[in-house]
């Protein structure tokens, strides 16, 4: 590994593939009695009821047909109306009355002839049975059989598909992911109707047993990235996964970096577009946030609408965004550095205005700016957490107290308020929320450096940041790709080229890089397409 300056400063330790397998903890409950199901229904029932001791939501429903049948399910996860109609009623009535008396009602008969359920599995062990029940299936145990029927009759309450709150767009589809994994996969499948779209399932979390789907498009995805994702997810040992953030923290490359190396989104269109670019999506059950890897620096500055609006406008917006994100990082520290160290660099008239408004302000500029930045972060945090009804009160208090009263009282100078407000607006112009947090965070070290060392400090800080960014990788892909190392495909970085000219997939995609054929530039000539 190359080192910088021969010292090895800022070396990023890359994940070792052969990390030692963690010992299975005692949390893994299923291990204790992984016995096979017995032929006797009573024995099975006893074993299972011991497992589900003190679990009021597990329903045991015996049916006294011949032979006896026992239904076990979790109340609330099952569509009980359907259960009545397609399972209980056929067994209760049809089993006897349809002249099947001579044929003994066996497991086969129930599975193949009586219950009208699309997905039916067979469970051999107690573990299978327990997992089947907990995943929202109905378990059917038949007396005299050592195999259980696991019938899928999921029907729990779930949020419907709604517009994602965190990623709003003017133009573009309005559906967002929900907390249900299968709804989420279906939203992607509806957009990419190809057998090449693969969705590998796995379970993570010894206690929570959370389903995780790794989605990718075969032939487009880079196999090294895919293999890396499988490996890293396979190595997670955790008791429970409640949000995709749990997974993210286990699989990211550099945990201490302020920059997110994994993108998350609530929008199925972003996921589908990423899959088409050769990225891998990681869907976690019970959360609408889907992880996308690898992430590059530039994805942090791309909004979904960039691809729906016309390219000319998007290119302009990107330049606005680039400047705003520099402002978000540097404006407060620049103000402090210029006004306390390098007053020569401020235009004379501006300096006079600043000098005028600083008269009588009790704090040094650095403290003043830090104070206001801190207050702004507080306002922002309070605004998010507050109930909606109180939220407006926060903004009024913030605007009045900080914006006006503090200035009029002469505690804070007006330029600092302007600087902090501009910075705040600029930091919200960064499209990816988790990417924006990196800048919000880095603003403070920059401010300290500027307060201590002036422009020299800002430059040093920028150098450290750039060195870090250049060494950063996301799943083996350089974070600054394709700018560093410089690649051929720069049509979607600083500008957004028209769709018909983006012929190639990003460099980190798989072997099949050609995306669309060339020469599709439309024109007013006959046929609508030019030949060149």
């Amino acid at each position, binding site marked *: 590994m190359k080192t910088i300056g021969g010292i090895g*400063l800022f070396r990023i330790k890359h994940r070792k593939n052969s990390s030692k397998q963690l010992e299975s903890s005692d949390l893994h409950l299923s291990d204790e009695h992984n016995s096979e199901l017995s032929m006797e229904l009573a024995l099975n029932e006893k074993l299972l009821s011991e497992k589900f001791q003190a679990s009021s939501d597990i329903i045991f429903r015996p049916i006294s047909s011949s032979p006896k049948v026992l239904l076990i399910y979790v109340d609330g996860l099952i569509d009980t109306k359907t259960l009545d109609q397609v399972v209980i009623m056929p067994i209760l009535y049809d089993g006897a009355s349809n002249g099947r008396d001579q044929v003994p009602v066996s497991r086969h008969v129930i599975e193949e002839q009586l219950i009208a359920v699309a997905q039916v599995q067979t469970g051999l062990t107690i573990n299978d049975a327990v997992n089947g029940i907990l995943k929202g299936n109905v378990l059917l145990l038949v007396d005299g059989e050592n195999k259980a029927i696991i019938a899928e009759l999921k029907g729990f309450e779930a949020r419907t598909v709604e517009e994602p709150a965190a990623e709003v767009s003017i133009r573009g589809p309005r559906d967002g992911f929900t907390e249900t994994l299968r709804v989420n996969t279906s939203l992607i499948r509806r957009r990419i109707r190809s057998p090449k779209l693969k969705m590998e399932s796995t379970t993570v979390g010894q206690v929570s047993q959370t389903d995780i789907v790794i989605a990718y498009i075969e032939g487009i995805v880079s196999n090294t990235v895919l293999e890396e994702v499988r490996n890293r997810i396979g190595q997670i040992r955790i008791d429970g996964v409640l949000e995709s953030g749990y997974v993210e923290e286990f699989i990211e490359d550099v945990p201490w970096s302020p920059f997110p190396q994994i993108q998350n989104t609530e929008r199925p269109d972003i996921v589908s577009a990423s899959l088409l670019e050769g990225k891998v999506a990681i869907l976690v059950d019970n959360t609408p946030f889907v992880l996308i890897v690898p992430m590059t620096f530039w994805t942090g500055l791309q909004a979904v609408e960039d691809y729906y609006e016309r390219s000319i406008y998007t290119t302009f917006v990107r330049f606005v965004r680039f400047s705003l994100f520099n402002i978000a990082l540097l404006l407060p520290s620049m103000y402090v550095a210029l006004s306390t*160290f390098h007053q020569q660099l401020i235009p004379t008239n501006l300096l006079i205005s600043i000098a005028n408004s600083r008269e009588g302000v009790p704090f040094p500029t650095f403290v003043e700016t830090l104070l206001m930045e801190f207050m702004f972060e507080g306002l922002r945090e309070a605004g998010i957490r507050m109930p909606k009804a109180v939220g407006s009160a926060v903004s009024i208090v913030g605007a009045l107290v900080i914006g006006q009263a503090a200035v*009029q009282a002469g505690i804070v*100078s007006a330029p600092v308020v302007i600087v902090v407000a501009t910075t705040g607006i600029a930091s919200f112009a960064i499209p990816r929320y988790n990417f924006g947090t990196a800048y919000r965070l880095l603003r403070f070290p920059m401010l300290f450096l500027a307060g201590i060392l002036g422009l020299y400090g800002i430059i040093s800080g920028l150098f450290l940041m750039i060195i870090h960014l250049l060494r950063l990788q996301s799943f083996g892909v350089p974070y600054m790709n394709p700018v560093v190392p410089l690649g051929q495909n720069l049509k979607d970085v600083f500008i957004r080229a028209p769709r018909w000219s983006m012929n190639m997939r990003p460099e980190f995609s798989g072997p099949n890089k050609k995306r669309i054929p060339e020469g599709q530039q439309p024109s007013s000539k006959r046929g609508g397409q030019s030949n060149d």
Partner: protein
Amino acid sequence: MIKKWYSRGFILFFLFLSGCWDSSEINEMAIELAWGIDKASDKKVMISAQAIIPSKLGGGQNNGASGGSNGKPFFVATGNGMNTLDAVQRMQTKLSRQVFRGHRRVIVIGEAMARQGIKEVFDTYTRDPNLKLRTDIFVVKGDTAKNFLQVSYPLENIPGLGASGEFTQMGSPAEMGMLNFLLSATSAGASPTLPAIAIATNSSLQNEEDQDDRPKSGREGFRIDGSAVFNKDLKLEGYLNLKEDQAVRWVMGNLKELTVTATVPDEKGNVSMNVYKVSSKIQPVLQSDKLRIYITLAGQGAIRENNTRLDLTRTENVKLLQSALNKDAEERVRQTIAKVQQNYGADIFGFSDVIRRKNLPLWKSVKNNWEEEFREAEISVTAKIKVRRIGVTGPSLHLNPHETEK
């Protein structure tokens, strides 16, 4: 691992060794925008600084009751000393805030100081890294720099900015005064000039129009009044008036635009023209052991005032005006050069640099006796002003059609 953290800590430690520890808050500085150098007794210099009083300047949050009426938004602090920095030390004893010189826009030199010569005091203005070269320098005609700095100026809050603004309005490149001065001071043959500025109510130098509309009581405002000619020892030799100053700068190519006015003798009227794209060409030749310098003045412009009866839609009339303007410009420049040659003998036009650039052998032959050669040189001036536009009318609109001359 520990080694790595040591190395990181080591590097971070260096961050604090270097860097600028000279942090100072804006409200702990006396921001000084204009600066005066005067002669003091005992071979000392007197330094005056015009510093702003931020709380008295409008526009900020502190305006309102305290703004405006409570007095001038600036004050002048002075100090005497052996040299500039010594004087600044003395001046600092009268100021509660650190003098901040990074925003100096204007340096004025008192006439007495200028006559004594500024070679001995000028080093600090180029040595100090906090000072900028983009500064205008003026010589206060007939007064001291201190007096000049105390004069208030009606248009600008800070009078120093007014001086700089007036200079820019003269068609000179903005804030190039210091640089141009240094360039010609260091050149082998050329002598520097500086714009001269005069306090408006100084009666001995007053123009007629100033007497009419200004109250005698207050000394308010100032005006650019030609330029001051220095010799090679950077001592003031004398002044040129406004017209001569413009001619000098035209020859030097140091003019962005100017207005030329000429009488048209045959037509009993006069004409004014805005000239832009002003340029000049200097061609030195040695003819029968005599140095001849051919100067071609060029410029393009628009007629802005035509007090003759000529109808300017006709080409021959425009040609007539053009030749009148050219003749006037030629005459003006020729007289100026003659005056400089006779009175000062200082090559303020930078002919020496042109000769050295264009004809090095010639320069080597004249260099040792350049002042004499300059006095003796024969100058011929050709002006080639072109009228590009005539304005929106042909003949003057207030004239009856039969009054105009086709």
